[in-house]
């Protein structure tokens, strides 16, 4: 909880190095590989932000598309009026406020209500935005013209991913992180030692929502023309859940293990078999539940535990793999 252990210093250094290496990519390619890398980094940012909240609470949030769309729209509406960095901050604030409202309505009760509420949230926000647009303006969408290139977007998303990682790391060492650990162990005990459990969850959800909204804001210039159906595409929420759970949410870097392969697979499927994307998504969900409930990182950890057990039979009994 206090100074950095050598292990932590090493992880931080390694993380910084990997991000620096990844940042070099646009120098080598600015076509297909950059384009798919933007997707990968986008989903990396979204999935780690998602796991920031859903990892410790086990609440499946489907609000990602709503936050993302709000971020995109803040840029779409404000690009002619305000400087871009300010818009990113505004997007973050809007995301946090939205998350706060959703959290306040649902996180005080039980987890199921939260899932149901977020299930239709993107659709709700999409309808509201569409309604407002048709009511108060003639155009259905918004144009976003900027000087931003694919490389800029890539770098910004990479920086955002780094920021999410750093934030998770800092939260884990904070009162909030400790509170989440206690809640994860026993919510009744948590309340009786003095943790405002609902408030802790809401704060965490707001941080997560703010990051997702920033990701949407950063990606906005990529669309050029923003329409409600693309900005609030509910598929984004589901893909984020799949990728994060595929990787595993116990470790900070777990979601990344799911993001990279699945983004590539989805890219391949949607360009070659566009009618089959739904089926692939469905199968992915079933695979997560039945085959790899703890994600790939969970599998790796179990394998590692088995390996250490075999090589050191005298060691203390490991936790039983579920």
């Amino acid at each position, binding site marked *: 909880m*206090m100074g950095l252990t050598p292990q932590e210093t090493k992880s931080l250094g390694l993380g910084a190095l990997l991000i620096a290496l990844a940042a070099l990519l646009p120098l080598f390619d600015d076509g297909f590989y950059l384009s798919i890398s933007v997707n990968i980094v986008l989903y990396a940012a979204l999935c780690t932000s998602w796991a920031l909240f859903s990892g410790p609470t086990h609440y499946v949030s489907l609000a990602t598309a709503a936050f993302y769309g709000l971020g995109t729209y803040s840029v779409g509406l404000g690009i002619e009026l305000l400087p871009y960095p300010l818009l990113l901050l505004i997007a973050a604030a809007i995301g946090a406020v939205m998350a706060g409202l959703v959290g306040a309505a649902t996180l005080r009760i039980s987890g199921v209500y939260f899932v149901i509420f977020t299930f239709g949230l993107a659709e709700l926000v999409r309808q509201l935005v569409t309604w407002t647009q048709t009511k108060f303006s003639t155009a259905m969408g918004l144009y976003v013209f900027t000087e931003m290139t694919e490389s800029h977007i890539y770098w910004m998303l990479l920086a955002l991913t780094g920021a999410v990682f750093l934030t998770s790391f800092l939260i884990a060492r904070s009162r909030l992180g400790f509170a989440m*650990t206690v809640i994860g*162990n026993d919510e*009744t*005990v948590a*309340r*009786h030692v003095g943790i*405002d459990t609902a408030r802790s969850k809401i704060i965490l959800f707001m941080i997560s929502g703010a990051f997702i909204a920033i990701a949407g804001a950063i990606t906005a210039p990529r669309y050029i023309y923003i329409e409600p159906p693309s900005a609030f595409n509910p598929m984004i929420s589901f893909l984020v859940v799949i990728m994060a759970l595929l990787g595993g949410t116990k470790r900070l870097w777990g979601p990344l293990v799911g993001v990279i392969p699945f983004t590539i697979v989805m890219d391949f499927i949607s360009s070659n078999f566009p009618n089959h994307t739904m089926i692939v998504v469905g199968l992915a969900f079933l695979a997560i539940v039945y085959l790899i409930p703890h994600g790939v990182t969970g599998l790796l950890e179990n394998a590692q535990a088995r390996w250490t057990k075999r090589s050191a039979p005298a060691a203390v009994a490991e936790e039983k793999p579920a």
Partner: protein
Amino acid sequence: MTAALSIRAARKAFGGLVAVNDVSFEVKQGELLGLIGPNGSGKTTMLNLISGALPPTAGEILLDGKRISGLPAHAIARQGVSRTFQLVRVLPSLDAEENVMSGAVFGRVRLWGEDARRIARVLLDRVGLGDRAHMPVAAMTYIDQKRVELARALAADPRVLLLDEWLAGLNPSELQIGISLIDELHREGRTIVMVEHVMDAIRSLCDRCVVMSSGRMIAEGGVSETLSDPEVVRAYLGDDDA
């Protein structure tokens, strides 16, 4: 001087079942009060009302003259009410030290970092677990888990400590250790309410006791006279556990 804890006509109804029926009593500063009664008499529900695990249907509960009934459990904990649970509840993925720290970090004292860790160490020594601070609590024996739970409750430096059958399930030698531990806390001036079935412990430890039966308070006062009260005897004789 205001009482440390005042219960005024507290009532809890679950649908048609009245688990606590207009119970009133006070706990003085530094007093050890025994809350006793046959199984199902509403003792644990009473503790749940005090700690905020359940909101009372009617009546009020005051801590040092300030109303705490109606507040959520975490707010009551921060005001200075700590408790243990009838069926021991530890945080299984954490070690003993971290378990105890949770009480210091989020409770009334709200310490952080080294300060919380220091308190945890002192209290683990206190309950006799000084050498097992980094043992995962999931691997501990029942009595040691109970000790961790007590240390966690003490870590918040509570104004009122609630013990829900903390001595239950201990073997005779453990029971002696447990009784002397509670006695020590009492001598230091801690205000304690204990729900207990172990009558020897009640006799040797408590200043006063409150007897409940079918949700009502049927007697209150010094331990020996209350236990010889005819109504109390009747309540217990009607019950197999007496």
